[in-house]
């Protein structure tokens, strides 16, 4: 019996020829991602237990992002703890404010994600990096503490589900619509504990940015990880972004690998999707919800705050005026500069949007765009749980940057295809 790409990566990480789903393994970690909310508690735990050490100062990547720039005194204290620790251990890849950005956009962009590696981070959307044929999963703070100190972590090898993305996307339809359609079908816990492996011809035409939007939301189906195989698109991105360590191993699933389920999608038939409150699985085609009045549009986050997303939004906003509060949040300083250099900021400014510094900010109801009671926000983020972006009586509608931009212009949920 063959192995999936996920099983092969984990087998390598434990130095075995084979692992099987359900097996408990102690895997070697290649990269630990650290941010400002969940890493400070991990640091305190290590200090309290008297094991304040790091397994490898070159394999830990640190970026404050959630509440940065500090939104209040308590957040500033978290940043101070993170900063003191990173400096004390001489962490090589510590992105301070000015170079810090939304972690899951920043790490690939700065060349820290390589195929075949095991990447963990105390953030549920760490599954994003699976777009690079890596095993990558979100963990808690205690896990992070263990990984930081020992470079090892326990895992149950996940069974895999295969998602075959057939066809090609129509105009105005993007990878966000695909992943919302996937989650709408399998449900918020349809892939619980599993690895979601995405394959199929529709991926060929997707950039790494677009692919990351898909793996980013694997957790929204309850998955342990999301993964996409290596191809020319992956190679080109890596050639352009890897810096210090440029070697990597490419694994692929065997043709006789075992899957718990295989789900086929005809991407040509997928329409722009909106996930209605209050679950990411609440996706419906735009035709079923267009016209619903909104109070805010949010374009940013680790799901859709990359340059391609900003270009798509700008394409729709060009020469138009937004009818509601519209926040543009480039995910990293590099993306911010790129958007500025390409003239996208002028388009956003003319349209009446506000442009923010890179931050996770309002995606999780932190700051910079928090919602009042009863307000509705069309958002390119990944979660629409109760109270996610602010007041428990506010509502979040998840959509692509195109749908969010079109909705910003109309002031209500709108089909981006009429703007093309």
């Amino acid at each position: 019996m063959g192995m999936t790409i996920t099983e092969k990566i984990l087998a390598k990480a434990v130095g075995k020829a084979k692992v099987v789903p359900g097996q408990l393994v102690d895997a070697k970690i290649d990269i630990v991602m650290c941010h400002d909310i969940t890493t400070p508690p991990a640091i305190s735990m290590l200090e309290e237990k008297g094991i304040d050490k790091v397994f490898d100062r070159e394999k830990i990547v640190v970026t404050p992002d959630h509440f940065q720039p500090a939104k209040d005194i308590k957040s500033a204290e978290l940043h101070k703890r993170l900063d003191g620790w990173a400096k004390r251990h001489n962490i090589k890849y510590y992105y301070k404010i000015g170079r810090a950005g939304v972690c899951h956009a920043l790490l690939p962009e700065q060349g820290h994600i390589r195929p075949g590696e095991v990447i963990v981070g105390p953030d549920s959307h760490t599954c994003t990096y699976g777009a690079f044929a890596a095993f990558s999963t979100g963990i808690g703070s205690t896990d992070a503490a263990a990984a930081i100190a020992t470079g090892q972590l326990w895992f149950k090898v996940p069974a895999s589900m295969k998602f075959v993305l057939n066809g090609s996307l129509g105009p105005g339809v993007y990878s966000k619509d695909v992943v919302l359609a996937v989650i709408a079908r399998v449900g918020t816990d349809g892939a619980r504990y599993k690895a979601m492996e995405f394959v199929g011809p529709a991926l060929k035409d997707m950039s790494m940015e677009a692919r990351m939007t898909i793996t980013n939301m694997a957790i929204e189906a309850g998955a342990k990880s999301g993964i996409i195989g290596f191809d020319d698109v992956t190679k080109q991105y890596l050639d352009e972004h890897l810096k210090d360590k440029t070697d990597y191993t490419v694994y692929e699933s065997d043709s006789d690998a075992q899957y718990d389920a295989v789900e086929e999608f005809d991407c040509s038939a997928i329409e722009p999707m909106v996930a209605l409150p209050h679950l990411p699985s609440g996706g419906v085609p735009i035709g079923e919800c267009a016209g619903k009045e909104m109070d805010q549009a949010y374009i940013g986050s680790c799901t859709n705050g990359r340059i391609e997303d900003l270009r798509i939004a700008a394409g729709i906003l060009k020469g138009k005026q937004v009818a509601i509060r519209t926040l543009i949040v480039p995910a990293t300083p590099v993306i911010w500069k790129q958007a500025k250099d390409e003239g996208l900021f002028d388009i956003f400014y003319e349209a009446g949007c506000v442009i923010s510094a890179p931050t996770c900010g309002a995606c999780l109801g932190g700051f910079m765009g928090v919602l009042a009671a009863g307000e509705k926000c069309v958002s390119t983020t990944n979660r629409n749980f109760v109270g996610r972006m602010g007041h428990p009586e506010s509502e979040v509608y998840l959509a692509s940057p195109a749908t969010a931009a079109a909705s910003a212009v109309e002031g209500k949920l709108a089909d981006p295809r009429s703007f093309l």
Partner: protein
Amino acid sequence: MAKAHVYKRDHINTDEIIPARYLNTDDQAELARHCLEDLDKDFVNKVKEGDVIVAGEDFGCGSSREHAVWAIRGAKVQTVIAKSFARIFYRNAINNGFYIIESPDALEKINDGDEVEIDYKAGLIKNKTASIDISFNPLPDFALEIINDGGLLEHITKRTTD
């Protein structure tokens, strides 16, 4: 006697358990004051030491924030009984030495306010109010080892010292 706080809901997520507006601290006592705030504002006033939370499928889905476990433990809740748990919440509970119970039947057999007693060794939830016993599968051995050591870091330290 432990009282059950029953929520007939699936997908009770980490945003409801501890909203992100409180993530600027990792102080357990402070987090506990906002436990389940966006699900049930009154929970913190009702809960007593040793009480249990009972819920449906996929409890703790969403964010990796361990603050969810800390808020619940900080509120002196003895355990959470759910039909199933989201993956990271499950890890976080074990890593904190916090025993959680997966039971397909508990939600149907326990009403809000029922008095319950839990025999962890025997894998038995005793509903004293309804006079019924509900069995559950104890956590797997590796999880018990971590819990018995007091959490993952204690487990690692012990293992290294041994």
